[in-house]
C-alpha cells in the first residue's frame, strides 16, 4: 500500500510543480520537494518493517514486507500487483535519496521551464519506484516504459548542444529492446497458460512455469537484451555516453544513479528466477560480456576528453561487475551486486554532480581545456578526489566492498572470469586519476574562463550526503546486506534449476 502512496505522491508533486511552474519557479521547486518529502515519509514504515524483519545472518525473516494486489484487466488476469522485499526497499530508498540529490543539483542549474522540469523529474522517479516494486509483468512493463518518456524530455528540453541526437538514440535503444521483452513476456505468459490453464502475468505464478526448453532460452534472451541495454553492457552500451553527456546534470544523476539500476534489478529479479535452466546455460556468454564490459569500457573511459563521457564509460565498466555478480548467482555475489548497485549510484551521482558544477563554472567539460582547478576551487576539487577514489575502489568506501564481494562470489563459479575482471580494478585508477591530473592539477590552461566560485552551502550539503553514504557503506555494508538478506536468499532459491533447489 505504501508503494502506491509513494508513487502517487511523487506524481502529485510533479503535477503540482507543473501547475505552479508558470507563476513562480521557486514555488514549483518547493512543490517538487514536498512531493518527494511525502514520498519519503511514506517510505519510512517500509524501511522500519524491513529492519525489523532482518534475518541477521539466518535468513529467517519474512521475504515480502508489503504486498498489494488489485484487479486491473480481468480479461488477461492482469493485476496491480506491488510487492516489496528487502531488495526493493533498498532500491526505492536509493531512488528517493538520489531524487533529493538531483533536485538539489537542479536548484541552481535549471532556470527555464522549471515547472515542467520538476514534473519530468518526479515522474521519472515515480516510474522507477514502480519498476522496483511491480511484480505483475504487465505492470512492470508499463512502468519500465513510462519512466522513459520524462527522461527523454529531460534530455530533449534541457540538454546540452547535441541533445536531440542523444535523446533519440536513448529512446530508440531502450524502446526497441523492450519490444523484444514484451514479446518474450507474452510468449512466457502463453506458455504458462498452456501449462496451467490460467492466464496470469504475476511473477509469483510465472515462477512455476517450466521454461527449460529451447523456447525458454529465446525468451530469456529477449528479457536479457532489454535489461542489458538499460544496464548498459557492451555491445549495446552505445546510447549511454551520448545520453549522459547531453543530459543536464540532474538528468545525468538520475540516469546513472537509478535508471541504469533498473536494468540491474531486471536481471536480478527476472532472468534466473524465471528461466533458471536457460540462464545457467547462458552464463558463460553473459560472464564473458560482463568481463569485456569491465575492461573495454575502462579502456574507453581513459581515452575520453569529455568529463561526462569519461564518467559514463566508467559506469559501463562498473555495471560489467553487476552482470558478473548476477550471473555467478550465489549468495555472496548477489549481495555484492546489491552493494555495488547502491555504491555506484552514490558515487556516480557525485561524479556527475561535480562534472555539472565544473561545467557551470568553466563552461566546458573538455579535459584539455581545464587544468589547475584545485587552487581556485579547493573544496570542489577535494570532493571530486573523494568520488574519484571511491569509483576506483579504495577499501573503506562502498564500491570496494561491492566489487570485492562480486569477485569473491564469481571466483566460486568461474575463477577465470573473476581473475580477468579483477584487472578492471587496476584499470579503474587509471581513468579515475586522469580526471584529477588533467583538470585539477597542473597549470590553468590559457583559455580557462574560471570564475573561481567554490562550492556554495547547498552544493556541499548535497555532496556531503553522498560522501557519508559511501563511507557508511564502505565500513558497514552489513547494514545493507542484512536488509536484503531474506529477499535475496529467496530469490536465489527461485533461481536455481529444478532439482538443485533446497
Amino acid at each position: 500500500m505504501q508503494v502506491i502512496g509513494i508513487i502517487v505522491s511523487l506524481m502529485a508533486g510533479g503535477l503540482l510543480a507543473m501547475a505552479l511552474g508558470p507563476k513562480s519557479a521557486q514555488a514549483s521547486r518547493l512543490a517538487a520537494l514536498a512531493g518527494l518529502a511525502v514520498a519519503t515519509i511514506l517510505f519510512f514504515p517500509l524501511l522500519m518493517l524491513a529492519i525489523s524483519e532482518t534475518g541477521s545472518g539466518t535468513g529467517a525473516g519474512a521475504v515480502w514486507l508489503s504486498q498489494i494486489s488489485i484487479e486491473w484487466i480481468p480479461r488477461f488476469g492482469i493485476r496491480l500487483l506491488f510487492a516489496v522485499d528487502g531488495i526493493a526497499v533498498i532500491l526505492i530508498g536509493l531512488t528517493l535519496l538520489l531524487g533529493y540529490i538531483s533536485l538539489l543539483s537542479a536548484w541552481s542549474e535549471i532556470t527555464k521551464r522549471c515547472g515542467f522540469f520538476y514534473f519530468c523529474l518526479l515522474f521519472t522517479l515515480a516510474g522507477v519506484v514502480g519498476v522496483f516494486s511491480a511484480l505483475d509483468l504487465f505492470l512492470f512493463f508499463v512502468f519500465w516504459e513510462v519512466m522513459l518518456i520524462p527522461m527523454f524530455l529531460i534530455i530533449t528540453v534541457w540538454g546540452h548542444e547535441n541533445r536531440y541526437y542523444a535523446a533519440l538514440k536513448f529512446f530508440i535503444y531502450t524502446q526497441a529492446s523492450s519490444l523484444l521483452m514484451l514479446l518474450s513476456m507474452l510468449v512466457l505468459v502463453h506458455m504458462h497458460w498452456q501449462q496451467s490453464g490460467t492466464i496470469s502475468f504475476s511473477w509469483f505464478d510465472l515462477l512455476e512455469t517450466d521454461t527449460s526448453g529451447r523456447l525458454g532460452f529465446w525468451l530469456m534472451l529477449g528479457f536479457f537484451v532489454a535489461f542489458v541495454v538499460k544496464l548498459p553492457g557492451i555491445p549495446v552500451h552505445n546510447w549511454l555516453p551520448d545520453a549522459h553527456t547531453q543530459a543536464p546534470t540532474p538528468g545525468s544523476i538520475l540516469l546513472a544513479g537509478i535508471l541504469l539500476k533498473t536494468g540491474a534489478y531486471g536481471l536480478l529479479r527476472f532472468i534466473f528466477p524465471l528461466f533458471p535452466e536457460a540462464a545457467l546455460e547462458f552464463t558463460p556468454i553473459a560472464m564473458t560480456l560482463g568481463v569485456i564490459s569491465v575492461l573495454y569500457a575502462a579502456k574507453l573511459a581513459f581515452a575520453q576528453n569529455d568529463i561526462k563521457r569519461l564518467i559514463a564509460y566508467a559506469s559501463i565498466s562498473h555495471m560489467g561487475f553487476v552482470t558478473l555478480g548476477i550471473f555467478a548467482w550465489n549468495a555472496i555475489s548477489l549481495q555484492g551486486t546489491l552493494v555495488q548497485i547502491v555504491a555506484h549510484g552514490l558515487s556516480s551521482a557525485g561524479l556527475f554532480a561535480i562534472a555539472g558544477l565544473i561545467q557551470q563554472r568553466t563552461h566546458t567539460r573538455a579535459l584539455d581545456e581545464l587544468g589547475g582547478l584545485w587552487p581556485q576551487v579547493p573544496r570542489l576539487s577535494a570532493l571530486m578526489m573523494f568520488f574519484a577514489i571511491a569509483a576506483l575502489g579504495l577499501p573503506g568506501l562502498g564500491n570496494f566492498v561491492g566489487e570485492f564481494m562480486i569477485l569473491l562470489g564469481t571466483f566460486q563459479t568461474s575463477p577465470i572470469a573473476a581473475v580477468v575482471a579483477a584487472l578492471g580494478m587496476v584499470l579503474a585508477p587509471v581513468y579515475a586519476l586522469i580526471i584529477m591530473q588533467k583538470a585539477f592539477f597542473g597549470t590553468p590552461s590559457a583559455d580557462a574562463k574560471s570564475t573561481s566560485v567554490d562550492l556554495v552551502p547547498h552544493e556541499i550539503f548535497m555532496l556531503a550526503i553522498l560522501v557519508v553514504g559511501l563511507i557508511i557503506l564502505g565500513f558497514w555494508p552489513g547494514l545493507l546486506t542484512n536488509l536484503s538478506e531474506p529477499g535475496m536468499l529467496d530469490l536465489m532459491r527461485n533461481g536455481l534449476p529444478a532439482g538443485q533447489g533446497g
Partner: protein
Amino acid sequence: MDLIQLLALMPLLIVGGVSIVLMLLIAFVRNHALTCFVTCIGLLAAMLTSINTIGDGIIQVTPLLVMDDFTRVFCALMIGISLAASWMAYTYMEASDEIREEYYILLALAALGGCVLIASNHFASMFIGIELLSVSLFAMVGYMVHGGKSSDITLEGGVKYMIMSGVSSSFLLFGVALIYAYAGILTIDFLAAPAGATLSQGYLIVGTSMLIIGLAFKLSWVPFHMWTPDVYQGAPAPVTGFLASGAKIAVFAFLIRFLIASGPDRIDLLLAGLTIMAVLSMLLGNLMALLQSNLKRLLAYSSVAHMGYMMVALIAAIKTGNISEDVAAEAIGVYMVAYALMTLLAFAVLSRLAALNSEYETGNIEMYGGLLYRHPWMATCMFVAFLGLIGMPLTAGFIGKYYLMLAGVDQQLWTLLWVLVAGSALGLYYYLKVILVMCKESQDDAPAELETPVASGFSGVLISGLCLMVLYVGIYPTPVIDWIQLALASL
C-alpha cells in the same frame, strides 16, 4: 419489411436522414454553425440509438443488411468517427474561404456508406456501401480545391483517389462476379449454400483474391498503397482524419465479416498472399515513413504500417477459425478502436492548427518546430497521439499492440511477429523525430497565432476529449474489450 426491421435499421436511417435534412436546410438557410450543429446532433442521435440497441439479437433487414451486435458496435464507432470529423471541421471550415455547408452532407453520406458496408452480408449491399463511401470521399478529398496555394495538390489527391477507387471497384466487381459464378449466390456466406459448385475451385480462389485486392486498395496494404500519401497530403485535415480512421474501419469490419462467413481457411494460397502483404506493409510503410519530411505524408505511411500490424491479427484470426471466442478477432477490434482514436486525435490537432494558420495544413514539418512552447496543450495532445502510435503503455496504442502480439503468439506466427517488432522499432524514429521537432525551440520567437476564442474552445473540447479517451482506453481497456467481445459473439 416490418416495423421491427425498420426500427432495427434506425441508426442507418437517422444517418441517411441527416443528409436529407441538411440538403433541405441549406436550400433555405445557409448557416455554417447551424449546419454543423444539426449534423452533430443527428450523428449523436444515430450513435446513441446504435449503442442503445446492442443486445437486441440478430435481425436480418432485407436480404442485404444484417443488424447484429457486430453491426451496432462498429456502426457506433463509425458514426462516432464521423461525428468527430464534423466537429473538427467546424473550426477548420470557419477559417477557410470555401463554401462550407455541403461538406457536412458529404460527410453524412460517407458515414451512411460506412454503416451500410459494416452491416452488409450480401455482395450487393457491400458494393453500395463501399461506393457510397468512396464517392462521397472523392468530393471531400477535393473539397478545398478552390482555396489557396495548395489547390493543385488537393486536385491531385482528389483525382488520384477517384481513379484508385475506380480500379479497386473493378477488382471488387470482378471478384464478386467470379464468386457468383462459382457459388451461384451473392450472400457472403456463399459456401454454406448448397447450390452450385459446379465450376472448379479456381473460380473461388481467383474471385476471393480479387475481392481482397479490391479491399486492399481501400486499406492501403502494400502494394496497393500508392495513393495514400498523395491523398492524405492533398485532402483537408478533417477529411484525412475521417479517411484514415472511418473509411478503413468500415472496410476492415466488412473484411472480418466476410472472412469469417466464407471460411477461407481452406485456401492456403490466400493466407500466403495475406502474409506477404502484411510483411510488405509493415516494412515498407515504416521505411517510407522514415524518409518523409511532411507530417501528413508521414502519417499516411504510418497508417500503411498500422494496417500491416492489424493484418497480423487478421491472419491469426483466419488460422484459428473459431472467431467468436478467439483473441485474434478481438485484437483486430480493439486495435481498430485504438487506431481510430489516435489518428483522429492527431488529425483533430492538425485541423485545429490549420484553422489558426494555413501553413500547418501543408504538413511541412518545419512549421511544427517549438509547438510545445507556442501551443502547449495542442502539442501535448499531439504527443499523446504519437506516443499512442508508437505503442507506449498507458495509451490505447499499447493495448492494441499488446493484443496483436498476443494474437500472433497464440498462433505462433513467428515471422510476422519478428517483422512487427522490427517495424515498430523502425517506426520509433520517425514518430520521435516529430516529437523532437515540437520540442525544439524555434530560432525567432514567432508571434503566437491569433486565436478565435469561441471556435478554438469548441474544437478544444473535442481534442481534449479524444486525448482523454486515448489515455482512458490505455489505462482501463476493460469496457472496450467487453464491447468488442459482445460484437464478436454475435457473428
